[in-house]
């Protein structure tokens, strides 16, 4: 009954094991731990999220792979785990952000969107006939209330904020590396370098601009914030999240 792998309790998601665990969620976390590494670092003036673009064969056209996704102009996400589950969650997150915009006229604050995604993921742990999402997400965003924030969301649906974190295959080593190198007033430029060094630690093979993806949150200047207000004349909010182009990644790698 109480086997190490859960025994009879490990096959049904809606049944607790005697030790108080939902074994399916443990298995989902194992799926995440087997996925390619991704990490996020919060700097004093922005956030950087990055991921390895590991492909199983050199014949794969890696220009089509999307590890870092834009949700709305101020929020971006990276993942470790099952790619298809990530795709579905990204679509839901984008729709959720637009639904928020339609009601409130602004894009959701990072925490609100993270909570909505986490709710979707939790619903897959308490319904019949479904399985948990096999991804952990790092959500990076900027809002005027809390500034830049980085959240991790797990298959269980729990989420919490990080200053710097890594998920996936190499997460233990990466987190140890980040603990040594992180300080509270790290700048965005230093954070990008640290992210690249952390990725390099566990990287199998050549790390080039084609095998990693980087997304960056930049904090808007007071002038840009002024332009966003009802009196300012711009179309919509200036994007604070963007993915670095291959040329920009190559420049950072060469430094």
């Amino acid at each position, binding site marked *: 009954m109480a086997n190490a792998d859960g025994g009879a309790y490990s096959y049904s998601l809606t049944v607790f094991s005697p030790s108080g665990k939902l074994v399916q969620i443990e298995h989902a976390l194992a799926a995440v731990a087997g996925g390619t590494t991704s990490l996020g670092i919060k700097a004093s003036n922005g956030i950087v999220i990055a991921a390895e673009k590991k492909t199983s064969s050199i014949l794969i056209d890696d220009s089509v792979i999307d590890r870092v996704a834009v949700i709305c102009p101020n929020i971006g996400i990276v993942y470790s785990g099952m790619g298809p589950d990530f795709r579905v969650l990204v*679509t839901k997150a*984008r*729709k959720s952000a*637009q639904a928020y915009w*339609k009601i409130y006229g602004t894009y959701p604050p990072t925490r609100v969107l993270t909570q909505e995604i986490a709710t979707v993921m939790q619903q897959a742990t308490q319904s019949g006939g479904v399985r948990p999402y096999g991804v952990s997400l790092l959500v990076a965003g900027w809002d005027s209330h809390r500034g830049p924030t980085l959240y991790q969301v797990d298959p269980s649906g729990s989420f*919490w904020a990080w200053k710097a974190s890594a998920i996936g295959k190499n997460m233990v080593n990466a987190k140890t590396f980040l603990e040594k190198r992180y300080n509270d007033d790290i700048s965005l430029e230093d954070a990008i370098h640290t992210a690249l060094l952390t990725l390099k630690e566990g990287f199998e093979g050549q790390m080039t601009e084609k095998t990693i993806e980087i997304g960056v949150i930049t904090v808007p200047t007071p002038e840009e914030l002024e332009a966003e207000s009802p009196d300012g*004349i*711009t*179309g*919509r909010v200036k994007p604070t999240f963007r993915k670095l182009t291959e040329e920009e990644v190559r420049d950072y790698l060469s430094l």
Partner: protein
Amino acid sequence: MSKSSVYSSPGFDFSNIVRNNFLHEKGLPLPKATSTGTTIVGCLFKDGIVLGADTRATEGPIVADKNCEKIHYITESIRCCGAGTAADTEFTTALISSNMELHALQSGRKPRVVTAMTMLKQMLFRYQGHVGAALVLGGVDSTGPHLFTIHPHGSTDKLPYVTMGSGSLAAMAVFESGWQPNMEREQALNLVKAAIAAGIFNDLGSGSNVDACIITANSTEMLRNVEMPNVRVQKERDYKFRRGTTAWKKEEIRSLVVEETVTPIGRGDEMDTS
């Protein structure tokens, strides 16, 4: 006409239209929607599109808003002028703007003007003309500059210069005599300003200021109130009354300002992870 089943059938429910017509026949005055009256124009020039609009919103014979914004945001390089019922144009353009952003993120491509046009016309046709939005949609995308008109029933036209709204005839007269292909930016802007001015001065449903928007492949410039030909003149006399004109017997002064300090108790708005 209430539905007994909990499942609502797809498509728009027109049962209220029947009820409203019945009430109107019995003598109930129908509520007046805020109509923008309006003169809106768009014209193609050498580098892209210039859109123009007046700024008066009417409620029957009354001016409801002397400086409203009729050039709505669809995407960074696509804008839409709206004539007709103000609420309809606002909500329709906001809905399509949101859907365009979603579409752009999902497809990974810069959004196209025809996409917005298709979304708008399909929505307006679905509502069979009851959504009173007459739109001038213009923008520049990867295939070049495009200009469309969309009528409330869902029909569209693709043209190099267009006008809509109650002032459209006045504006079109200016366009027909002044438009040439491959105009320069200044020439196109002046033509649009003249067309809107024609609407402002010759149509009662249009008035106040001129708004313009210049869209090119590289930038979109929103010129809010680029011309203000109806600024209120300063009053000739001072109409204030001398203090003491009205005598008073008793005076009592109370402060309505409440002084309060807020002390947060507990953890504030942090998540409770205990």
